């Protein structure tokens, strides 16, 4: 009788342990430095122009996509974010192939696909630069929850600045908007989060 009771308790402990492990496994991988978009938001497919030709969001499915909405004339925040993205991709080592960095220009008047291509490749050869007409960009930015505003040039000048949301946004393997980081996240933290999200 005593023996039976012991085996009962051991079995129960094993079962509880198993359940805890299972719950741990099922729990979505926690990225600790960004902010989860919960529930992850399915995105509409779109086509934009890269320097190599048109590209659809669905063409990129199956990888973790890191989106940044910016413009090439931006001297400060945009290159800072791209440098961070470059360093985090390099930190990933062999896992880097599972991640694609995409810069979407919100300055279609000045950023041609060629200019964008040169700009992103000056950071990393695998980065993609995308742009499109204003209507398409408006639809995509609305879907991503990204704000942008092209400021009118100051009197007597032709150059202008573009205000834009500066978060780095993650689209998961199922094509859903799932995570967000501030542009000044460190490369190490971003890489650690990406590794956690890959598991």
């Amino acid at each position, binding site marked *: 009788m005593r023996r039976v009771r012991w085996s009962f308790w051991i079995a129960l402990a094993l079962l509880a342990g198993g359940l805890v492990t299972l719950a741990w496994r099922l729990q979505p991988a926690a990225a600790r430095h960004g902010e989860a978009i919960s529930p992850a938001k399915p995105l509409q497919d779109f086509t934009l122009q890269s320097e190599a030709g048109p590209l659809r969001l669905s063409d990129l499915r199956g990888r973790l996509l890191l989106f940044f909405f910016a413009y090439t004339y931006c001297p400060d925040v945009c290159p800072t974010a791209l440098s961070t993205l470059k360093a985090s991709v390099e930190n990933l080592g062999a896992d880097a192939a599972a991640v694609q960095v995409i810069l979407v220009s919100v300055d279609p008047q000045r950023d041609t696909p060629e*200019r964008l291509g040169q700009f992103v490749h000056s950071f990393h050869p695998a980065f993609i630069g995308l742009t499109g007409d204003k209507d398409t960009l408006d639809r995509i930015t609305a879907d991503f929850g990204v704000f942008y505003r092209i400021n009118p040039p100051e009197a007597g000048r032709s150059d202008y600045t573009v205000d834009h949301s500066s978060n780095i946004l993650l689209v998961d393997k199922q094509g859903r908007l799932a995570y967000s980081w501030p542009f000044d996240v460190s490369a190490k933290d971003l890489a650690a989060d990406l590794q956690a999200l890959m598991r």
Partner: protein
Amino acid sequence: MKTKIFCTMILIAIFVSACGGKTEAASITIENAWVRAAQMGSGMGNNMATPMAGMEGGNGANSAAYMLIKNSSSTADKLLKAESDVAMMVETHLSEMKDGVMTMHEVEGIEVPAKGQVELKPGSYHVMLMGLKRDLNAGDKVTLTLTFEKAGKVVIEAEVRNP
């Protein structure tokens, strides 16, 4: 005798004014000045969908210079302007986050508090280099002339970095 006294006084006057000038310039020190590398290829200027007036000589690339400005004087100073021969236009700018949206605009000057410092850094104050005349590769040096309201001109060499 009178001439001797007169000469001495002039010498003292020169000495005092020279000292005064030196103290003023030395009140501002610049540390850790760097410029972000920007390589956009020679064809970049031709790829502008709409070329920018006045920027035809540059390759259409922009960059920024960052630094720590320290003021040892007991009065506040102000960085009024920055100049460099690497860009068509050089301005002092501020990037600011407002409700999650990043905006950037020119500022009239950058205040350096008395016995204090101001850091020009990504996502904040920076010297914007607009319309680069050449590629900036890591390791290159860029000469910047900074004009302060009180300390006057300070010429520095900033290193190009690929952060």
